[in-house]
């Protein structure tokens, strides 16, 4: 809002005060004139106020605007007197108002470190004392309100600023914590992976698997994808990522349906992991497909490679991988494992577990 200017002579009624104020706050000038007229009925306050406004508006940049201020105080006193307050009450309110003005003009409020005008404090205190000590019965309703209002005016900005500072502090702290968490995460994962990649720069397969694992992990963290042990596909994804990293192969994971992992299913995941690791180690193919299917009656996991295949009869009896880690484990969990393979024709391991309650 611009400071009101006096209305130019062609449109003014008296000194152009009401028109100027109306322009500045964008209301109808008649309304402003009406307010001044009503105030004039309150012990002549409107007239004094009009003169004060005229002073202020005809020379707004005057060094010491005491004259209009003084007139405003007089106007307010007249208005309060017209409302039936005793002279003491009016005087004490004037004192309080004057003190507050002093305090505000000398550096604001009770902000820590802000200068506090001694004269202002004395004036305010004097006003309170006068009001409480000499105010008549008619003023008694006024005293608590005046004290509260004055305190609010002085201490309010200070309290408000305290609040703002505390909020800012909290936001900054949260931000710092978040940044620390991201930094820790990046350090633990991305930076470690980059270091590993630098060390293995001559082994493209290993670099690729490191990058893939990192991508999965980061994606899981950013978008909440499940690479955890909670669900079957999540657990399989984790196992696949391990095998990819250990053996430098690529594992394509597909699924249809999902369920939470119980003890028996955990065995299925371990058996599947063993099958993936076998495919990675022995099949001579760097691509492995894993498919998990869950329906109401059973969970099935297929692990397939397109590699060399083998003759199941020729596996030495002391090689415990398939017998123990896959077949034995599935049998103990209450399921079964089937292995379809032939030399030169790849291998597919099928793990089936009936679901409890079906």
């Amino acid at each position, binding site marked *: 809002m611009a400071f009101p200017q006096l209305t130019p002579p062609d449109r003014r009624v008296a000194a152009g005060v009401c028109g100027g104020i109306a322009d500045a706050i964008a209301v109808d000038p008649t309304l402003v004139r009406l307010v001044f007229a009503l105030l004039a009925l309150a012990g002549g306050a409107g007239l004094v106020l009009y003169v004060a406004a005229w002073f202020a508006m005809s020379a707004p940049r005057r060094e010491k605007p005491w004259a209009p201020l003084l007139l405003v105080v007089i106007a307010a006193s007249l208005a309060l007197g017209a409302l039936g307050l005793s002279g003491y009450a009016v005087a004490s309110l004037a004192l309080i108002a004057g003190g507050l003005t002093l305090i505000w003009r000398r550096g604001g409020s009770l902000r820590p470190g802000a200068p506090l005008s001694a004269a202002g404090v004395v004036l305010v205190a004097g006003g309170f004392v006068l009001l409480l000590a000499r105010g008549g019965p008619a003023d008694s309703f006024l005293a608590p309100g005046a004290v509260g209002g004055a305190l609010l005016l002085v201490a309010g900005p200070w309290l408000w600023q305290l609040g703002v500072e505390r909020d800012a502090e909290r936001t900054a702290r949260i931000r710092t914590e978040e940044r620390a968490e991201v930094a820790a995460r990046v350090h633990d994962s991305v930076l470690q992976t980059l270091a590993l990649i630098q060390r293995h720069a001559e082994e493209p397969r290993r670099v690729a698997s490191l990058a*893939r694992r990192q*991508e999965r992990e980061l*994606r899981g963290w950013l*978008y909440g*994808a499940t690479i955890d042990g909670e*669900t079957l596909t999540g657990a399989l994804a984790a196992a696949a990522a391990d095998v990819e990293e250990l053996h430098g192969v*690529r594992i*394509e*994971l*597909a*699924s*249809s*349906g*999902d*369920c*939470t992992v119980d003890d028996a299913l955990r065995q299925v995941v371990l058996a599947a992991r063993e099958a993936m690791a076998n495919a990675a180690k022995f099949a001579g193919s760097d691509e*492995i*497909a*894993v*498919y998990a*299917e*869950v*329906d*109401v009656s059973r969970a099935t996991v*297929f692990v*397939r490679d*397109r590699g060399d295949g083998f003759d199941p009869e020729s596996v030495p009896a002391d090689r415990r991988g398939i017998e123990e880690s896959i077949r034995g484990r599935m049998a103990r969990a209450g399921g079964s494992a089937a292995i379809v393979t032939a030399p030169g024709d790849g291998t*597919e391991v099928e793990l089936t577990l009936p679901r409890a309650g079906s």
Partner: protein
Amino acid sequence: MKRRVVLVDDHRLFRAGVRAELGDAVDVVGEAGTVETAVPLIRELDPEVVLLDVHLPDGGGEAVIAGVAQERPAVRFLALSVSDAAEDVIGVIRAGARGYVTKTISGPELAAAIERTAEGDAVFSPRLAGFVLDAFRAGERVHGDSELEELTAREREVLQLIARGYRYKEIAARLHLSVKTIESHVSSVLRKLQLSSRAELTHWAAQRRLI
């Protein structure tokens, strides 16, 4: 005659990578990074195949398909994404994409998938096959009068084998069918998926996590 291809992906680096991987196999005639630039570009260039990211900054692959399909019905779309969310992938397929492959696909495999898309065949990666099986099974599970037309036993068998990592040729050999027959089964699945109602799949998306 090399296939004319437009790449739509918001990562310039990734587009450069795909271009390099594809090499001389196809003719990449244009690239775009947003829905806003992709739609007029595709309309103008009229390529045979558009490689389309499922997620774009100003909308999804679906928006690109919707903006182009009317004017250039011959353009075929192949979704290419790392997105793991089944409902996003199914959404693009339903909008009209002929298939979905993951970004980790090798150059030659991608070139083969583009060729298949250009021929009008469906391209189902193992992951997409899993999603689709999921969607149809959920349809059966929830309603008797499912709007999602059911898969035939054969279609289901084919999809399962794709999910298990078998290629069309291997599936054909295993089922004693021709590759052409396998392709027609897959296309029929795609058609059923695209004709099904939106509500059905929304329901599926909400239900799909745990059985």
